[in-house]
């Protein structure tokens, strides 16, 4: 269970989050929508304690992790895996080394086992042929696929976090990424791996998520399902989601 209680955060006297309250189960599929600069990515970072709030509480499975020291955060971070906007691949390592990174750091697997697992993960995300390439030789879509493979390599996260996974991609690649996101979170609604996707691509959000949050002026001004979203009376949100509104 994820609980965010009255989170507030400011950068340089600019209030980014202004009293965020939100609860979710790990198997939920959630999209956080909002315009640029509304604090969507910051919210993801707070879940992982990559940023700390000015006030409020972040509770993961009953444990308040808000101000836990870095050394004690591994257990709660292991429940999540994140795919950043540009993939955040280690640019001095090739695709194989990127995907194998966590296994080499934390597991006792032999090199042969690591190689097999890396190939299996790359096959799963559909880019096994890129195993020897460097990150700068990959397209944006391929980088995100590698990042997804890497995020699954270290552990089996209970929830995937995606930061603008379709941003800057052509429609076909974005479609493939959405399919992959759905595949990685497939299963029964109570057993599957959940996801939180942060995006301003409303169509992509509608394809992968079942619950939608809309951030405006540092607050969650909408929280509901697709049906409620398309029938919302909030003028700002209606404008934001006009692509998926019934004509």
């Amino acid at each position, binding site marked *: 269970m994820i609980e965010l209680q009255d989170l507030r955060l400011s950068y340089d006297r600019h209030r980014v989050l202004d009293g965020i309250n939100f609860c979710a189960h790990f198997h939920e599929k959630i999209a956080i929508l909002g315009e640029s600069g509304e604090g969507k990515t910051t919210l993801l*970072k707070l879940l*992982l304690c*990559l940023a700390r709030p000015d006030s409020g509480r972040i509770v993961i499975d009953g444990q308040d992790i808000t101000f836990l020291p*870095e*050394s004690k*955060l*591994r257990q709660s*971070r*292991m429940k*999540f*895996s*994140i795919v*950043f*906007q*540009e993939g*955040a*691949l*280690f*640019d001095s390592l090739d695709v194989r080394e990127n995907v194998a*990174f*966590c296994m080499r*750091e*934390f597991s006792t697997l032999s090199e042969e086992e690591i190689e097999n697992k890396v190939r299996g993960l790359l096959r799963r995300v559909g880019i096994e042929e890129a195993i020897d390439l460097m990150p700068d030789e990959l397209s944006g879509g391929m980088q995100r696929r590698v990042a997804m493979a890497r995020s699954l390599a*270290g552990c089996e996260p209970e929830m995937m976090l995606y930061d603008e996974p379709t941003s800057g991609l052509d429609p076909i690649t974005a479609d493939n990424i959405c399919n992959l996101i759905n595949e990685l979170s497939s299963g029964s609604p109570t057993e599957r791996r959940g996801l939180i996707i942060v995006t301003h691509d409303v169509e992509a959000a509608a394809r992968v998520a079942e619950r939608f949050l809309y951030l405006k002026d540092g607050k969650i001004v909408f929280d509901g399902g697709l049906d409620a979203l398309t029938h919302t009376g909030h003028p700002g949100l209606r404008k934001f989601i006009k692509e998926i509104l019934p004509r």
Partner: protein
Amino acid sequence: MEQMDYAGAGSFFIVFLVSLFIGMALSLQISTELSSLGLKMYTGKIVGISIIREIGPVAIALSYAGRVGSGMASEIGSMVLGHQVDMLRVFGIDPVKKLVIPRVLSSTIMLPLLTIIGDAVSLFGGYYISVFVSHQSGSFYWSQIRAIMGFQNIFSGIVKPFIFGFVIACISCYMGLATRGGARGLRRATTTAVVLSTIMIIITDFLLTRILFFVLGMQA
């Protein structure tokens, strides 16, 4: 090893060039001045002491800060901006252990080695000017260099680059990790790393000189 290769072997050419020309320029200046006093034969001694105790460690540290320090700050800074440092933290890996400690160690080891090489090159530069421009005796030049190769001078010349290497790497890594605000932030971090390193090298050099004079019982 990768960091040592980048910091050490990668800096060899710039250290060689800087040291060679500093040695030659210093020898030229000193022999010209001493010549007017009829003391030109002491060029080797003054060049040697200046290079080994002071100019060698400082000049090479400044070159090193410009090349390696800026590289460290920009590399780590771009990792911060590209969320690679965040990924390390998500994986439960301490970025300081993974990124900072290898760089600090490599700098602390490689800068003294580069300084030894640079000092030697500077002395050869000084020798070239003394013999082929100022027309002094080469053997006398080297005998004076040998005479100043005592514990005090060598110790003084070796201790400084250890500290400089540590200071440059700490400042550069810190500025890299503190990078915020896109390309402009990266430029600011890199520039600040070099400027701060330069200032700290000069200040640390003075403080170390005072401390070494006291520890080694040398009179000002």
